[in-house]
């Protein structure tokens, strides 16, 4: 059962909610309680932009059971406009033509299914612009 954790992470997974330190401007994604730069605990909630670029990526050709029907697929580190980096699957792409530096857009996709009868988990993925 992945229900409780999934539910808790909805703000960051569904709409890229992050915490911006009101004192030094550091952006924490996901949210943190204490700013790693200035130790402030005063954050405001912001929504990250949905555009960025690929910093690096790898091709998964042998995946765990849940993702085995999707191979080969690409997982990359994407840097968003705000400078925030996130790890995400890069969808709808010919993995052999993927390149570092390509511009991407963050989209809303189904990430996994909790078995045949469990909940469906949604979240972000990147697609090439």
């Amino acid at each position: 059962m992945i229900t409780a954790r999934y539910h808790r992470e909805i703000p960051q997974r569904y709409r890229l909610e992050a915490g911006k330190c009101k004192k030094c401007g550091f952006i924490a994604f996901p949210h943190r309680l204490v700013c790693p730069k200035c130790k402030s605990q005063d954050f405001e909630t912001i929504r990250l932009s949905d555009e960025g670029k690929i910093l690096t990526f790898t091709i998964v050709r042998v995946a765990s059971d849940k993702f085995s029907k999707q191979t080969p697929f690409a997982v990359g580190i994407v840097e968003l406009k705000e400078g925030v980096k996130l790890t995400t699957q890069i969808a709808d792409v010919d993995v052999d033509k993927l390149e570092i530096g390509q511009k991407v857009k963050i989209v809303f996709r189904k990430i996994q299914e909790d078995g045949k009868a469990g909940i469906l988990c949604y979240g972000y993925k990147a697609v090439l612009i």
Partner: protein
Amino acid sequence: MVGIVGYGSYLPRYRIKAEVIAKQWGSDPAAIIRGLQLNEKTVPGQDEDTITISVAAARDAVKRANINPQDIGAVYIGSESHPYAVKPSGATLIDALGIGPDVHVASYEFACKAGSEAMYVAYSLVKSGEMKYAMGIGADTSQGAPGDALEYSASAGGAAFIMGKEKVAAEILFTHSYTSDTPDFWRREGEFYPRHAGRFTGDPAYFKHIMGAANAMLEKSKMSPKDFKYAVFHMPNGKFPQEVGKRLGFTKEQLEVGWIVPWMGNTYSGSSPTGLAAILDVAKPGDSIFMVSFGSGAGSDGFIFRATDELPKIQNLGVKLRDMLLNNQIYLNYGEYAKFRHKIKINE
């Protein structure tokens, strides 16, 4: 003035050609393509469903409306392929868009006309003064049984429309709905693929209901087909919308822009709504638009829209339907398509 203040559409990038499906089952591709007027259709990615398609379309609708999502008082998604049998698709969508939790959400079903139903109720709530904005969405990832005629048409896509009273881009002038108990097409609970009554889907179902709603709307509005710049009808294949348009007195030119089915397939609840989105992408202020949906079982919802001076200001704020339709396609062979659509039995 009440009408559409923002709209968005979405189609998956994957496609399968009618020719590929025909060859798989030993049918004559040329006869199928000519008969149904279908060249290819969209296929949802393995990570796409009615919820993700609705979110993509709705995000563009909010961008075009340029409103605070918190001001949206209702979200209705019409679909015959809601991912859950019990758990509303709209609940996921509102959290993805930052709408609510003070919002009314419901899933609608009525075969292929669930999307226009959602639009009609959203419009009515705004018109009544119950709320400032309401969103109606039609989206589907429909399945046709392997080898069945529906396999050439059942595709994936959707469109979202935000209704409001301020900065209206397309005013809704008239509506009309027409319904009767007609067993032309159905899917019983627990069945994977729908059934249809072959030729019974034509005259007693599709043509009767669309013409019923269309003629009533023309009478109400005291308008005639020549008063419209564009018309769009539900598109179960390429042929039917052309034929019903002709019977009603619309020309090929009036149907051309919304007639996206030869390259998209039938997106069910998203069919006439995506056709409308394609029209809104290019319409000019003052253009009148005629739309009638059709859902088996059976019924039709009709709308008469008129584009305003606001429409050109928002057209470029989102992705245009024909840009998605005619660019960046990823073509699948039949095996890949069967895997994507879960048509292959595997060990879990």
